[in-house]
Each structure stands twice: as C-alpha cells, then as structure tokens.
C-alpha cells in the first residue's frame, strides 16, 4: 500500500536519497490513508493550520511597522491603519484572524468531543491539542495588549492580577510579570517579545500534533478503526480536494469580516488610547475568552479555606486543564456519539452550557446573570467529573458497524456490537 516511490527526476532522487523529504511528503500527504467516511467537520484541523500561517505572515509584516512603546504604540497602530500601504488590510486580517482561529479551533475541539477523538489511542494527540489551545490563548491575550487601547490596558491589568490570587508569592509574581508597579512600558515590551515568540512555539506543538495524528490516523464519525484498504482513501487527491472546499467557504466567511465588518468582533473602547487613570465602565474580554471569564467571576464566595478570588482563578484554569484528563474521565467503550444514545444529548447540553457561559461572560457580574453563571460553572465541571465517568458505565452503546466500508445495515445484529466495541478498545 505505501510503497516507497521511485523518483524519476534525478535532482529529486539525489536529494531524497540524502534527505527523504519527497518520500516523506508522498507518504504523509499523498498516499496517506484517510477514513473514507469523514464529514466536513474534519476540515477544521486543516483550516486551523491555514489561519496559523496567515496570522504569522501578517504578524511579521505588522511587527515591521509597530512600535512597542507606551507613547507610540497606539499611534503606530493608527499609522498602520492610515499611512502604511495596505496596512489597514493586514491589520484587519490579523485582528479578525485571531477570532477566526478560535472559531475554527473551537469547532475542531467540539468535533473531537462529539466523536470521541480524544479516546485511546489518541490521548496524546488530544493533550497536544490542549497545549495548542493554551498557547493560542496566551498569544491572543498578549497580542490584544499591543494596540494599547483602553481594553488592551485594562485587560492586561485584570488578567495579570489573576496571579495575585496565588498565596504567598502572588504579589511577587505580578510585579515580576509587569516589570514595575503597574502595567507599563516594560510590560508592553515583554508582551510584544512573547507575542512574537509564542506563535513559533505553537508551530512546533502543531508539528507534534500532526506527527501524532499520522501515527494514530484520523478518527472518523463511526469511531472505529480502519481495518484495510477498503476503509480508506489516499489523502491526495481526496482530502486535498475536500479540505480545499472547506477552505473556500472559510475564506469567504473570513473575508466577510475583514472587508465588511472588521470591527464587529472588537470593542469600541480599544480605539481610545490607554489611560491608567480611567477604567472603562464595562470591561469585557474578547469573545473567545468569555466562557472562561464567566467561570472566573462566578465564584463570589469562599470555598472552605480557599478565598473566592483564588477559587475563581483555580476554576478558570481548571476548566481548560481538566481537558488534559478527559481521555481517562470518559469511561465509554465506544468513541462516537453516533453510537451513544445518551451521550448524544449530553454533548448538546454541554455545548449549550458553554454558550450560556459565554453569554454570562459578556454581562455585568450581578443579578440573574451571576446566578446563571454559577449554575453554568457547576455544570461545566459536573459534565467532566461526574457525567463522563458515570455515563460510560451505565450507557448501552448501539451496535457498531463491522467496518467503515460496511454501513451499519450490512453489519447487522446486536450481538456483534459488543464484539466490535471490544475490538475497538484493543486497537
């Protein structure tokens, strides 16, 4: 199936014998076997890598024009918007690209949750994905500080202050992060340095994510392994073609925001230069942080000996870190929600919970919104810590198809379901 190709071109052959990049590319992106039943939700990994490249390229061009100094940062961004050739285009792509990156990655993650893509043997693949999410969040947060608008400044102040919740060393850590006694020039400079560095770290982790994917191969909507050539199609041209279609639709969506609603996902306050003496009336993070922000703010009471402030921080970080152990929290024998009659609905409840938390994150932290946020936060953790372990034990999965190529109708009877499920666990 994956025979090493004979390269006809002598230059290609000369290089390949010494550094097998052509053989590698052929193996991993040409002949590479993909499950034939993937749906369009499997486009989003490729889309995320496209956005990453777009972000790095536009970011490098912006860095050539940007000045990381508190006196010049805001005006240097406006100079990019007004005087640099196509500067407005590059900045709007970069600014909206951050949102696009999160949209794509969130869909990519929820696809993984629905089809059980985090389950053995893909645990490490999933964990690398969580590292990618954390790196993205850090990068996005620091990038948002760079224009040095009001939201940049106060966002930076609020988020760095999270670390002051850590007992004993908290204040010390915050001063260290700031390089001063408030968010100031030193902070802006180091955020710029790190905002430029982290995307390249991200590229490295994405590389590991992809290598890991190519070891375990893609999961698929049925959640069963490929058993032979009849279950797969080669990556090229089947998935180059299919990913390209997804890319086309995605670029239309992206371009719509860049050209016709470039500030829709942003906040007007960030067009006011940072002012250390005036806090905006209503601070909200960028939309992709809202659910986590809601979790942070929902803890208004001390839990045992832990003060409310620290508990909020612990839960906010915990809400992401818990994803690392999800592969072991989920005890189900089958992967895909398609064959899990109860989880199928539980998934949607969880998704709605996340959306509700996002809505709460944008509201002032008081009244009904606060209570809804507390319920939402509670359920968020219950979903992972109680529902996932228990449901896997009590739920009876539907019969799995015998193979990807043979749909469930061909596979037949309930008797084979357990056998198929057992088989899956071994693979």
């Amino acid at each position, binding site marked *: 199936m994956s025979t090493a*190709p*004979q*390269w*006809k*071109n002598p230059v*290609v052959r000369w290089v390949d014998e010494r550094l097998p990049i*052509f053989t590698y*590319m*052929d193996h991993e*992106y*040409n*002949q590479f076997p993909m499950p034939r039943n993937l749906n369009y939700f499997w486009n989003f990994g*490729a889309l995320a890598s*496209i956005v990453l490249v777009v972000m790095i*390229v*536009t970011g490098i*061009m912006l860095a*050539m*024009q940007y000045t990381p100094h508190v006196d010049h940062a805001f005006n240097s961004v406006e*100079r990019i918007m*007004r*005087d*640099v*050739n*196509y*500067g407005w*285009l*590059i900045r709007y792509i970069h600014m909206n690209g951050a949102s696009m990156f999160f949209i794509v990655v969130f869909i990519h993650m929820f696809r993984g949750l629905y089809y059980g893509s985090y389950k053995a043997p893909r645990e490490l693949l999933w964990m690398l994905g969580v590292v990618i999410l954390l790196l993205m969040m850090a990068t996005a947060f620091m990038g948002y500080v760079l224009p040095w608008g009001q939201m940049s400044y106060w966002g930076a102040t609020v988020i760095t202050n999270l670390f002051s919740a850590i007992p004993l060393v908290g204040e010390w850590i915050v001063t260290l992060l700031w390089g001063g006694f408030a968010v100031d020039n030193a902070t802006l400079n180091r955020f710029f340095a790190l905002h430029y560095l982290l995307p390249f770290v991200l590229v490295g982790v994405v590389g590991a994510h992809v290598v890991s994917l190519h070891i375990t191969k893609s999961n698929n909507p049925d959640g069963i392994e490929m058993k032979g050539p009849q279950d797969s199609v080669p990556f*090229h*041209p089947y998935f*180059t*073609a299919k*990913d*390209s279609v997804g*890319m086309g639709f995605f670029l239309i969506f992206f371009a719509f925001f860049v050209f016709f609603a470039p500030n829709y996902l942003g906040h007007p306050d960030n067009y006011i230069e940072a002012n250390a003496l005036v806090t905006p009336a209503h601070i909200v993070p960028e939309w992709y942080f809202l659910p986590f922000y809601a979790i942070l703010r929902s803890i208004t009471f001390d839990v045992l000996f832990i003060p409310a402030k620290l508990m909020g921080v612990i839960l906010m970080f915990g809400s992401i870190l818990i994803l690392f152990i999800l592969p072991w929290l989920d005890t189900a024998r089958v992967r895909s929600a398609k064959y899990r009659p109860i989880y199928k609905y539980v998934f949607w409840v969880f998704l709605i919970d996340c959306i509700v938390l996002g809505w709460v994150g944008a509201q002032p932290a008081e009244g009904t919104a606060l209570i809804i946020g507390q319920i939402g936060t509670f359920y968020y953790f219950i979903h992972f810590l109680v529902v996932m372990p228990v449901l896997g034990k009590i739920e009876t999965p539907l019969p799995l198809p015998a193979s990807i190529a043979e749909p469930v109708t061909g596979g037949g009877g309930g008797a084979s379901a357990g056998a198929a499920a057992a088989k899956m666990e071994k693979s």
Partner: protein
Amino acid sequence: MADTATSPETGDEDAGRRDFLALAAGGMGVVGAASFAWPLIDSMNPSAEVLALSTVEVNIDPIAEGQSITIVWQGKPVFIRRRTADEVAAAKKGDGEDLRDPQKDGDRVQNDTWLVMIGLCTHLGCIPLGQKGTDPKGEFGGWFCPCHGSHYDTSGRIRKGPAPTNLPVPPYKFVDDKTILIG
C-alpha cells in the same frame, strides 16, 4: 491546500484527473496567493507620511564661498557647496579628462556657484569626506571616501577608486536667490 500538495510522480492514473477543472482551481489558487502576497510586500514600501516628507527647503544664504553644508533629505545626506572660482575652473577643466562616468560639469549644476548632490559614495554608501575645511579632499580637491578610497573631483565626479558612478544630483530648484527646494 490543493496547490501546495506535491503531485505524485508515481503512476499515471492521476494524469486523467488533471483536467480543466483542476487546472482552473490551481490557476486561481496561484492568482489568489499572489494577490494576497502583494499587499504584504507593498506594505514594506515607503508609507504615505514618509512620501509626504519627500521635499525639503534649504536656506543657502549663510553659506560662505568655499563652504559646504550637509542637510538631510529623505534620510540621506545632501551636500550643498558654494564653490570658489578655482573649484569651478577645476571642474570645467575636468570635462575634457578621461572620465569613468562622463558628465559635463554644466550638466551637474544649475548655477556654477552651487553644487548640490547626494553625499553617499556610489561604491557602497559611505559618506565621503570633504565637507569640512580640515577634511582630506582626495587627489582631485573634491571629496574622498575613506571606506574604500574613492576620489571625487570638485564637481563630485568619480576620478579614482572603486566607485562606479559620479555622486548623484537630487532633483532641486531655486525658489529664490536664498532658498532651494530639494525633492
């Protein structure tokens, strides 16, 4: 993605798929990538506020005969020298010599007294010496570039050394007797 994937050299069955549609898609992909690349590249060109500063007015009244000043135009030094009669004569005499970059002194100045030129050696961009009275002026009494030893005459023409061409003359005009506008 389609246009970045390597096409296989193995097997011929793929050739059939390279039909008009795939060609059109690939072609459009290349056009799209190029149209995305152009704004990125063009953003490195001088921006609007840099272009807006492309002219500078200089008051030349205080410059005495035999004196030079250096002003900055578009980030580069511009030499403005009020030449002595001897220097003008030497420059005119140079017209008949064997020059590497033949140019008449009359073509390099608008007014024999005033020599205006960009003070960057045409070899590798150092600033030649000769603006101050105490500077070495080279074998031809004009300017001397200390980096790699280029000698320029009193018209700013290259006479000896590695530089390929004369010191360039920027666009300028006399606004009145005391002021020139460069750019």
